[in-house]
């Protein structure tokens, strides 16, 4: 194959290879990774060998770049960059899309069963200090950064907070919250809502949409304290020997029609103006968070690489997990 691309399973059109071949005559091979972490580990251990293009979330793209593994984006080869919302070209981790191109974006908030939760939850504290009826019926995302973010947002801190005293406060809050939690879950939380096992869960917007698709009573809300802004990006690896083809591939993805596929089929917002505008209105009626304006979205703070402060995060998360 001309290109090896690693992405999450089901995150692109299944026939992407045929379409791309029809359009460019180039062959691609799509492989899957389960998590950002795994593919990052693999890229770092191997120096990126074997892969041409990878899909990773923004902090990881930042790391790839920091490690010198990311190839600069050849703007001239990717004219479809023009399709992006302006907000998507000035993102703090990579202003001007120099080494990464955003693929999907969204927020993190609360996903809940409106028929089982009284009123509309509007604060992170609804999750972290639930009313009695919700005790034992909430879940939180398990990954370090999102787990911490919920506490940081509730306290009004930055999601990239580095001040040890503040982090200590967050820790206390989260350890307390653990007592009322059904589980930490970042893979099946929406099906817990569907089955009624949980009533209020910490969720990514797009993933909440899968629950909404199964049960209309499920709703998504971004608490008043705000959310983080997450972005899944496309990065070309420096070690790639097929950089031209890789740029062609990015350009192909950014084509309005192709990029719209992601929004339509995986129910994640895409930062592609042309694509979003081509969507059926019915979609945003069924899944209201699809309609969130880019301007509102980018108000949320991006997760950034923490550098050496990561040590404090991993220790705090370990303490939370070990607490009982």
């Amino acid at each position, binding site marked *: 194959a001309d290109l090896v691309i690693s992405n999450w399973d089901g995150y692109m059109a299944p026939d992407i290879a045929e379409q791309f071949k029809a359009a460019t005559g180039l062959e691609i091979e799509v492989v899957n990774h389960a998590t950002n972490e795994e593919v990052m580990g693999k890229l770092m251990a191997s120096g990126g060998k074997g892969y041409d293009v990878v899909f990773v979330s923004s902090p990881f793209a*930042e790391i790839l770049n*920091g490690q010198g593994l990311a190839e600069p984006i050849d703007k001239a080869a990717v004219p479809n960059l023009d399709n992006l919302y302006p907000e998507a070209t000035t993102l703090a981790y990579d202003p001007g899309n120099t080494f990464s191109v955003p693929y999907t974006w969204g927020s993190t908030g609360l996903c809940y069963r409106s028929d089982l939760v009284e009123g509309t939850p509007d604060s992170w504290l609804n999750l972290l200090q639930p009313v009695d009826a919700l005790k034992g019926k909430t879940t939180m995302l398990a*990954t370090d950064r999102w787990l911490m973010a919920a506490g940081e947002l509730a306290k009004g801190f930055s999601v990239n907070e580095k001040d040890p005293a503040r982090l200590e406060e967050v820790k206390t809050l989260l350890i307390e919250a653990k007592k009322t939690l059904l589980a930490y879950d970042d893979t099946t939380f929406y099906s817990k809502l569907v*089955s009624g*096992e949980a009533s209020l869960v910490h969720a990514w917007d797009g993933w909440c949409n899968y629950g909404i698709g199964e049960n209309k009573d499920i709703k998504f809300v971004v608490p008043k304290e705000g959310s983080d802004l997450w972005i899944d990006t496309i990065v070309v690896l420096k070690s790639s020997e097929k950089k031209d083809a890789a740029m062609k591939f990015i350009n192909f993805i950014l084509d309005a029609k192709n990029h719209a596929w992601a929004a339509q089929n995986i129910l994640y917002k895409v930062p592609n103006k042309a694509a979003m505008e081509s969507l059926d209105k019915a979609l945003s009626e069924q899944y209201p968070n699809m309609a969130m304006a880019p301007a509102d979205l980018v108000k949320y703070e991006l997760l950034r690489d923490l550098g050496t402060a*990561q*040590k404090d995060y*991993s220790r705090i998360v*370990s303490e939370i*997990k070990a607490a009982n």
Partner: protein
Amino acid sequence: MSFNATRPTLLAAPGVAWLVALMVVPCLLVLSYAFFERGVWGGVEYTFTLENFARVADPLYAKIFLNSARIALTATVVAILIAYPAAYAISRAPRMSQPILLFFAVLPFWSNYLIRTYAWIVLLNREGLINNLLRSLGYTGEPLSMLYTESAVITGLVYNYLPFVILAIYSTLSRLNPELMEASRDLGAGPVRTFLRVTLPLTLPGVAAGGVFVFVLSIGNFVTPALLGGGRFQMVGNLVYDQFLTANDWPFGAALGAALILTMIVLLLLQARATAHASGERKGEAAQ
């Protein structure tokens, strides 16, 4: 057997070579990262430091280790208690059907860990099959919270590693001379004491091997605690995993890993000694 003193060495050579070339060398390479600093963007900064080992000494990690060891140990004990009678029954079945029974004991594990674990979630959750069954049997109380508890984690671990213990114990039971048990009965020991004093010591190597499997696989497991324990319990393997992948702190991961490997190997050597002693294994030189 001294008729060819070099034979044992020759027999062990391919396996030893494989392990040295493909495990020891690569692992030493990675574990040596423990002596260096984490780079700004993760990775390794080749500046010598002992800080990572200092961090390992943090009591937090000892606490996590002890806690997950407790969970793993419970799973190990439970698995042995279930596996032993099963292995015993298989070894007493007609010779022809023994391989079939063994095969059916492992067959479930040729599916996938994740979907097996999901199946347990379906069984155990508050809206799950067992609770529904209870309800249809007329149970009206609060649904039982069986999932996301330590017991659920232990159940999952026992379930997934049970066949390994059955296999290990079966392998020592399969050709045990039945006259030894008869001799014990004859000398006045009932079935229980015969089991404790003769059968068990003679099959202890198998029990120990099986126990080691459950323990090391459990303590290194992270899917089961995440799914059945709702992520509220952490196993040691997870800690190392997180350093390499989530925290992107390879040097600390290497230090934790090295500490973990060393501790476990020392424990295992002690355990092997104890087993050898209790099962009256022949002494090295005398047997030759």
